[in-house]
């Protein structure tokens, strides 16, 4: 029997072809595959409820050979197991989630506590109100609690600092205030339009990323091959979203260091990019642009000319502002050596996207598991080494320039948009499907499993923020508490992407 089976990104696989292993083999295999291999990381690890048992699926992506290894294991509900996390900390959060959903206990998990208090959790007595915060017994240290009501206007999350004066000793970030139950809604809502709208709402700032992951997954689950026009739309929208969000983040970082010029110039520059989405599809966040098997907004030469105009106004200002910002002594003194996460920490946390590339870890789905038009782009990920706020700012600046280059070459060569005749979508029965997309924050993973009638029985989302939140908590250690906002903004993680 095959120990392990591997597929490409956006490929489906009959459930029966996924090897089912005994738990100890399952554990040894997966841990063994990841051991001392930086090219591999776990993209998703989750459970599927069966009558009295739980079937665990583990998906490990290998960046060098562009494959995703899938294996599975059936365990009883409420059973007690040895944990993966003891050997590889990447699994720490996945196992907490499995425990929360299926009451599986782990004997040697390093820090066992609930993740997000989803509605379908087993133990309803566990609520956010009695969350077990890390506590201390000391006369010298003091605790600062921030949230869950955010001082600005964004989402709820509780941050608890343990400080020695101005210095942060420990930060615990607890999310789980939203209970949206998106994954269950995907099963409940049967119409494709409803599901597409759900995907658009997973995280408002990553609309394109999550929708692309959903439609790619759905199309390959139904055996539909998107034509060049659809692939073009998705790739272009992804890169535009990356540009807009990175510019907005640079603006927000300038606001946090009270650099007014940068804040207002970058803020102004972000607007034409998202307004361009409005011109293209009628929504600034690109909602309704991406649909399975069709698009209502074919890309035209007029739109391309318009985008060239937008870029012609955007580029000189962006470059001038970036040159100024990255030379300004007072800004550099805030950015440099603030919020450092080392390469070793990044690896053990299992961060993705920018939060991995900032410390020298080459992790970019556009290169390692290309989808859509990324197969034709010779993508070179932008890697920095220091893992500080400065590296994260630099990555944003460089990725904006890179994305602009990709977009310019793409719109110089617009494919023909055929009239799509809303194809009939019928998911294959008893099938597992996975889709990886590099959103602007990093890797997004969607997985789906169908039953014998082709109905969805599981939809699993992993947003890029899932692991990256821990990197934020790690980055602020031994920093001043007044530098927390700039560290937080430099990651700009998603609350709702975590609280699915």
């Amino acid at each position, binding site marked *: 029997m095959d120990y392990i089976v591997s597929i490409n990104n956006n490929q489906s696989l009959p459930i029966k072809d996924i090897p089912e292993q005994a738990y100890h083999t399952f554990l040894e295999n997966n841990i063994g595959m990841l051991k001392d291999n930086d090219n591999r990381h776990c993209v998703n690890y989750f459970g599927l409820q069966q009558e009295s048992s739980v079937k665990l699926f583990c998906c490990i992506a290998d960046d060098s050979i562009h494959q995703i290894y899938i294996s599975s294991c059936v365990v009883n509900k409420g059973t007690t197991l040895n944990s993966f996390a003891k050997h590889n900390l990447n699994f720490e959060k996945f196992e907490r989630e499995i425990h929360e959903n299926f009451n599986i206990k782990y004997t040697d998990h390093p820090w066992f506590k609930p993740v997000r208090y989803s509605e379908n959790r087993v133990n309803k007595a566990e609520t956010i109100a009695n969350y077990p915060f890390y506590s201390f017994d000391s006369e010298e240290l003091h605790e600062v609690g*921030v949230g869950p009501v955010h001082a600005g206007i964004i989402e709820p999350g509780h941050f608890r600092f343990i400080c020695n004066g101005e210095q942060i000793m420990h930060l615990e970030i607890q999310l789980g205030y939203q209970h949206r139950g998106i994954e269950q809604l995907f099963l409940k809502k049967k119409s494709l339009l409803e599901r597409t709208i759900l995907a658009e709402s997973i995280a408002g700032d990553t609309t394109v990323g999550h929708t692309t992951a959903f439609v790619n997954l759905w199309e390959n689950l139904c055996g539909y091959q998107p034509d060049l026009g659809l692939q073009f739309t998705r790739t272009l929208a992804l890169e535009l979203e990356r540009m807009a969000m990175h510019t907005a983040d640079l603006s927000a970082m300038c606001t946090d260091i009270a650099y007014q*010029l940068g804040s207002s110039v970058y803020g102004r520059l972000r607007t034409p990019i998202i307004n361009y989405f409005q011109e293209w599809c009628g929504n600034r966040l690109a909602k309704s642009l991406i649909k399975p098997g069709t698009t209502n907004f074919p890309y035209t030469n007029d739109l391309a000319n318009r985008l060239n105009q937008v870029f012609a106004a955007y580029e000189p200002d962006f470059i001038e502002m970036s040159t100024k910002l990255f030379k300004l002594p007072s800004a550099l003194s805030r950015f440099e050596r603030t919020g450092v996460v080392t390469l070793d920490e990044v690896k053990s946390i299992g961060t993705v996207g920018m939060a991995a590339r900032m410390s020298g870890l080459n992790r970019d789905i556009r290169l390692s598991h290309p989808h859509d038009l990324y197969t034709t782009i010779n993508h070179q990920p932008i890697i920095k080494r220091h893992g500080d706020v400065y590296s994260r700012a630099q990555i944003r600046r460089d990725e904006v320039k890179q994305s602009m280059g990709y977009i310019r070459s793409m719109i110089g060569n617009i494919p023909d948009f055929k009239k799509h005749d809303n194809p009939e979508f019928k998911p294959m029965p008893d099938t597992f499907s996975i889709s990886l997309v590099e959103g602007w924050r990093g890797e997004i993973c969607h997985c789906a499993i169908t039953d014998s009638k082709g109905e969805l029985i599981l939809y699993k989302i992993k947003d890029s923020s899932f692991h990256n939140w821990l990197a934020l908590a790690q980055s602020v250690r031994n920093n*001043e508490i007044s*530098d927390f*906002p700039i560290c937080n903004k430099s990651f700009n993680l998603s609350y709702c992407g975590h609280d699915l």
Partner: protein
Amino acid sequence: MVSLILILVASLFFTGIVIRTKSLASGRKGPGIFQPMKDIFRLLKKGSVYSSTTSIIFQIAPSFYIASVLMAILIVPLGDYPGVISFQGDFILFAYLLAFGKFFMIISALDTGSSFEGMGASRESLFSMLVEPAFFILMGSFALLTGHTSFHDIFATLHYGSNISYLLGLLATFVFIMIAMIENSRMPVDDPKTHLELTMIHEVMVLDNSGFDLGLILHTTNLKFAMYGAIISNFFIGDLSLIYTIPIFFAVQIGFAIVAGLLESFMARFRMSHNPQFIFILTSVSLLIFFGVLLLLERFV
């Protein structure tokens, strides 16, 4: 008396000019010059909300704060015209009146029992403490130079000896601008616009204040700015008559406000741990003034 009236007038538009400068620098039209005052009047018409954990301290502190600053303003002269109160050694009273008001703001912040406000109070008291030597070395030097110890006598006789005193006045202007920025918790030490409690100094101390109390606190900031502007203008006025004094006074106030606005537009604020180093620079500049005075008096051996 004339200085009191002028300072009260200047306090009406000072913050408005700072905000307008910042708006123009960031490419916006910005609110009118008197918008901050309108906001303050709006606040003054409201009632205050008090948390049940606070005591009487929290309720009286804003009044003490504005009273202490008004008292300090009474001491400030304008060139040849003494303040309402003037006596030998009055600048010492001036410094400690301000400290008195600040002390009440600090204990009122602690009174709320919030960890944020505690942090703000701790920062504010540290930075105020570091500013003190700069102020006293500076005023002490000028007292040594002129042989007088009251604000009025010092400023009225400052430029009798030689014109080098204008140079010292320039250095003193720098120190006072920075002291004013620190005391009023402006850039580059603090950011008044931030919404991030963890990085605030003064703003976080007044988070719990509302309505009338908040209006008092906000206007106290305006008064303090105008007061420091008046002191700065004194370095250049000497014993001129009112016809020259008043234009110079307003020119200095407006110039000061524009400098503050530009400073806040084109640089990032300091990292919190760099603030003490920066504040020590003021003490060093004050020492320069001190040595300059010693040279002038030929007491330097």
